[in-house]
């Protein structure tokens, strides 16, 4: 029993390494890169947790997972208990175990990180979530509370919507999710590639929600098929989590040439529609020999690694600051480099240059240098005069970000927005309209899966309070 491990023994265990597919092999397939820990390694890693009193890791988690408890149960090899704790606290643990930036959240707060490496909480979360998925029969079915006669509409089936739906269903509310696309998951499905998050994981997490009695209706665009006021009339409360789906344009010459994609289009073609991936997919994609991806976030990494897998000889990240300022996760940058991605740093795009047939041929760029810090603390890039040069690029992908999608808000003028067009929400997602809550990217602008999930969890608690207060 690990309970008998001394502090010294716990401290002596070194942090586990995540087994990965070989870089040369994986850079040509969409198979998942991280293979997951085996049981022995996972238990051993869990035993590294010294069960400190402060539990700072929990405060670092946007959804407040009881990390020491599930890790402790795993260290004691009580997997059903670990799974029970984890799935109670987190609606999408198999997703979070794969895509959360643990290094800047729970693991950043781990006391073991002060001298050495933090406990690999993300790897353990993934291990327990995957174990739970493949041992459904050994877990006691979750008892469902009796229906309490209230109904909630959830707009959007991404991480915020799924989380809120799960939380509300567990409290006995009748939840209907309206999704604009033909399939579930939102950005988890159309945005994040299979080599980071296999679609079977999304299917399984969604199936778990449906088992809680959540109703799913795809092909319904709120703002078009139904309006917010129709939802307000039909449901006791509404949670809006329709994402920041509107690409930001670069506004440079040549942006509308053939071969120039937004990140959303590039990833949607491949991830949602199967272009270049499923042999029978009728949705096409331009593969590109030389692919330049503009941007330095996780979406840019997803695009450039996808480009490699579609056969690009040169797949390049073009970013106007230096690697230190890149918002992408350290793991994504590392994986991209291992897969042969080139990092063209301190470089800003000026123009997409066409060949004689009107195709993208090159990305005209300018070198930058770092000047004074901006209000966010990152140093502002400043152009270097006379430093223009061309990068060969028959495909250019713009991954600089997204803005608020206007479809819902355009038909709900009574809903208060901030100056960027995002819905103005308080700390619990409350809007200016009673019974209408919002969360995820439609409130935050472009953020992460786990922050969206945190919004969904807090909004669900607030909605539950609102519906219980008799105000509805």
């Amino acid at each position: 029993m690990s309970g008998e491990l001394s502090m010294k023994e716990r401290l002596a265990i070194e942090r586990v390494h995540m087994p990965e597919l070989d870089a040369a092999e994986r850079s040509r397939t969409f198979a998942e890169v991280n293979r997951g820990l085996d049981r022995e390694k996972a238990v051993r890693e869990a035993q590294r947790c010294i069960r400190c009193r402060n539990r700072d890791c929990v405060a670092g988690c946007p959804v407040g997972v009881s990390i020491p408890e599930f890790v402790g149960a795993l260290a004691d090899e009580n997997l059903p208990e670990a799974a029970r704790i984890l799935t109670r606290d987190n609606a999408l643990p198999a997703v979070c175990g794969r895509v959360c930036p643990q290094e800047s959240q729970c693991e950043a707060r781990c006391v073991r990180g002060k001298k050495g490496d933090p406990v690999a909480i993300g790897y353990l979360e993934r291990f327990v979530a995957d174990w739970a998925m493949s041992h459904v029969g050994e877990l006691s079915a979750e008892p469902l509370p009796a229906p309490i006669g209230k109904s909630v509409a959830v707009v959007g089936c991404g991480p915020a919507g799924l989380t809120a739906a799960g939380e509300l269903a567990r409290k006995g509310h009748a939840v209907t999710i309206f999704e604009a696309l033909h399939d579930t998951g939102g950005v988890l499905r159309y945005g994040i590639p299979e080599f980071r998050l296999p679609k079977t994981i999304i299917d399984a997490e969604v199936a778990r929600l449906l088992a809680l009695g959540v109703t799913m209706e795809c092909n319904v665009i709120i703002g078009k098929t139904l309006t917010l006021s129709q939802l307000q009339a039909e449901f006791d409360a509404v949670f809006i989590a329709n994402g920041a789906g509107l690409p930001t344009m670069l506004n440079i010459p040549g942006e509308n040439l053939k071969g120039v994609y937004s990140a959303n289009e590039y990833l949607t073609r491949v991830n949602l529609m199967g272009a270049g991936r499923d042999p029978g997919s009728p949705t096409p994609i331009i593969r590109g020999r030389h692919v330049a991806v503009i941007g330095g976030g996780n979406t840019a990494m997803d695009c450039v690694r996808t480009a490699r897998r579609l056969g690009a000889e040169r797949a390049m990240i073009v970013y106007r600051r230096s690697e230190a300022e890149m918002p992408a996760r350290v793991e994504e940058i590392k994986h991209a480099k291992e897969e042969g991605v080139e990092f063209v740093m301190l470089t800003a795009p000026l123009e997409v240059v066409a060949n004689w047939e009107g195709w993208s041929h090159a990305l005209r760029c300018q070198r930058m240098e770092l000047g004074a810090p901006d209000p966010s603390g990152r140093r502002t890039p400043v152009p270097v005069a006379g430093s223009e040069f061309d990068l060969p690029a028959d495909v250019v992908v713009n991954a600089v970000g997204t803005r608020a999608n206007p479809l819902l808000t355009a038909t709900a003028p009574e809903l208060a927005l901030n100056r960027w067009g995002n819905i103005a929400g308080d700390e619990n997602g409350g809007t200016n309209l009673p019974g209408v809550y919002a969360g995820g990217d439609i409130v935050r602008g472009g953020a992460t899966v786990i922050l969206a999930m945190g919004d969904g969890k807090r909004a669900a608690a607030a909605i539950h309070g609102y519906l219980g207060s008799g105000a509805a």
Partner: protein
Amino acid sequence: MYDVISNDILAPSLHRLVVRAPRIAPARRAGQFVIVRAEKGDERIPLTIGDADPAAGTITLFVQAIGASTKKIVAIPAGGAILDVAGPLGQPTHIGSWERVACIGGGVGTAVLYPLAKALAEAGNRITTIIGGRSSQYVILADELAAFSGELLVTTEDGSRGRKGFVTMELAELIADPLRAPRAVFAIGPVPMMRAVAELTRPHGIETVVSLNPIMIDGTGMCGGCRVVVGGESRFACVDGPEFDGHLVDFDNLSARLATYRGIEAEHICRLAGKEAA
């Protein structure tokens, strides 16, 4: 699933499908479209909503079978079902009062024209409709359009029906006649036709609306694949359009972007036919 109530053939490879879509039928306005997927794994195809019956909860779609995906859609018989129908998408047509309006349809564009011509007529505009096609069998919806048009003119390239030539010949004569000259023109059809109409009306300052059909995926503004250049700015046909001021549209860019996958599609069709790509 969305039940197919009826499926008629209007012209070679042009079908009219009436589909049960009870949420879309009451929400839809003239000029809007839906995104359709016949089966799992298929492309998302934008199709104009030709008409709607809110009481019956049905919408009418005009589908020209040109690619593998549209061929699959028209192959669904009455009694069958379409997997996904999402909408209504896009901005509704601005139905103003111009008194005299010319509505011009080319080929399958006539099917897209039909709902907005009907809405313009219902709003009290006097409609002159000009429709054209390669030959008589490609002239569609003539009787349906004649029902509310003050005048219906037909042109065919081979002269097999109506006047031999292009729709622009009739439009030029219309503009030259002070008693019949339109105050606004709606033109929907192949890009060269819409461009020719816009060039014809430009010197006369006649308001000209065209409906664009760029390559589209989600139809909700999320991907930006359908961007078109209008007045020097990128606009998304799915959320800002599909109708735009024909005098401001960059038709060269639209034509170029529409050709993006032409090589790939040809290769795909060759493979489907079991032949070597040329």
